[in-house]
């Protein structure tokens, strides 16, 4: 997140995923109107396909808040939320639905989201929900949803997921092997080792490799 230089308002990057093109357009329009409130939405991306939204979270610039529809042509919003939580632990997630929210509340909370809103009342609730999720808090305060830090750290199904290859690289790194030595040990190229390391850093939301080791020790990942 970057603070605006002139207004003090928070500049956020917000993503929207909804397979209904009309709903998608409306939500984006609502977000653009929020520029008059205490949130300044600097960057909005929107997709109707879960694959594109997940790739955006994986490969694109860091997204502060993702808004996800709960019904996505056979996929649930909770499934997508869980995947985004793995890929981008620092992103706030808000679910939205046209149906009864209670049907999705539990699964979405377990997936690591921070709020679930009824689409019919987005105009009155979305701003506060975004403010809370961008700050890493759940919304509303008395709801069952976890904070971002809790959902990213807790050993739940939506927690940090390292693949077998990543775990092997981490284990070898803790043995003080260089990338070249790790590559030789695993029978892969050095570029592959670097690729795995980039992904590990992203999943653990750190910038340096020594921070990865510390975080793994803190979280008892290995």
């Amino acid at each position, binding site marked *: 997140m970057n603070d605006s230089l002139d207004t003090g308002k928070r500049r956020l990057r917000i993503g929207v995923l909804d397979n209904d093109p009309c709903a998608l357009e409306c939500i984006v329009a609502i977000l653009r109107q929020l520029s008059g409130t205490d949130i300044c939405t600097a960057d909005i991306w929107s997709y109707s396909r879960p*694959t594109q939204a997940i*790739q955006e979270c*994986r490969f694109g610039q860091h997204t502060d808040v993702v808004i996800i529809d709960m019904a996505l042509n056979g*996929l649930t919003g909770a499934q997508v939320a869980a*995947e985004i939580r793995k890929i981008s632990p620092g992103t706030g997630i808000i679910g939205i639905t046209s149906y009864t929210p209670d049907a999705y509340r539990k699964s979405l909370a377990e997936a690591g989201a921070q709020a679930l809103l009824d689409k019919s009342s987005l105009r009155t609730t979305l701003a506060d929900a975004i403010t809370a999720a961008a700050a890493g808090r759940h919304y509303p305060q008395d709801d069952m949803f976890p904070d971002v830090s809790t959902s990213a750290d807790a050993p739940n199904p939506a927690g940090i997921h390292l693949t077998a*290859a990543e775990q092997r690289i981490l284990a070898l790194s803790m043995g003080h092997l260089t990338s070249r030595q790790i590559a030789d040990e695993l029978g*892969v190229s050095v570029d592959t080792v670097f690729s795995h390391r980039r992904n590990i850093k992203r999943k653990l939301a750190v910038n340096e490799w020594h921070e990865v080791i510390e975080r793994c020790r803190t979280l008892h990942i290995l």
Partner: protein
Amino acid sequence: MPYTAHPVTPDSAPASAPVRRVSSIHRWWLISICVIIVISAIAELIGLAVIAKDDTSIATTAALTVAQIGATAVMLRKARLGAALTVILAVASMLIPTAATFSMLFAVILAINILTFRRTAEGIAAVVVMVAASVISGILYHDSAMASGGALSLGVFCLIACTGGWLMRQWDDAQRRARRAERLEHDMAIAQYLHDYTTNDLNNILMLTDLALTQPDSPAPDTLERVRGLAKDALKQTRLAIAALEHDDDADEHTMYQPTASDLEQQLFAVAEEQRTLLDTYGYQGSVLIGEHPFAHCSQAQATLALSLVREMFSNIVQHADPAAGYTMTIAATPSQLHIAVTDCHAEHSTPGMNTGLARLRRRITEAGGTWQVEEHGRNWTLATIMPTE
């Protein structure tokens, strides 16, 4: 993946020959009619024997009847020859002053039917000959049945027999075309099955071999084990496909069974996990999201097609995608549609697009009423398909 083998029957010979053999179904019908004719002829012979105790003119009729029984017997063995003999005997019976028998009439109708079925021109020629003979008989013997309208009746019966034979031929042609199309479709399906499985397995072998070649000394044992496993699977699938093509009835242990949608669903999960692990080895970070019971509303053919598509999508990732950017694939279904999509980022040196397998699947999916959409945003590439289900 196991596949249904449709045994080819002996009747599915190419339908291009103008003279056709009598099929097994037709043969039973022919035997039945011939038996009826022979029985009626024998009954008429007995009757003639009783009448002709002192009448030598009936002897000719009796002789012709005996000859007709013989011709009918020949018809059972060589239908065309027997039919021709029957027509000749019928012409002879009309040109010689003898009493016509009902069994002779039945035999002629059968003969014309057979001749038309075998070759239309022969049937028409038989009708012409019979009508001509009946007219000549009417002219020669003014008191014969042919002179008092019998020729017209006989002509009508012959035409009906000829038409019946022609209709049977048309129906038989349609059956042969359907069987040939079914066989071609079956063989095409086997070819596609071979492509879907062995091509992907061979591709994976190549990737693992490339991986092994980068190792300084000797390939890692688990890499070799995986290569071996893939080669073994490809060989097994190839043998199954060859057995199906050869329609080997003795190779029961190689018979392909027809998987249910539930079996295919399990295969889908297995394929997703296997491919994700393989891609992870190459540094591809990816997500595969599968909805609940994706094949619940699919037919076996639709589920098979979807599984082929998923395999090709993984293959396409390896061929075109940038490992550093990862990939995301989703497979999910609503009650009326199956949605399969993939997004990745094409590698800088690669041209975004589809491999030949995906191109072939595109045709099959669109022909089945589905949609195929490709979107490109910068280097991001998305393929989204929708297949209507039951």
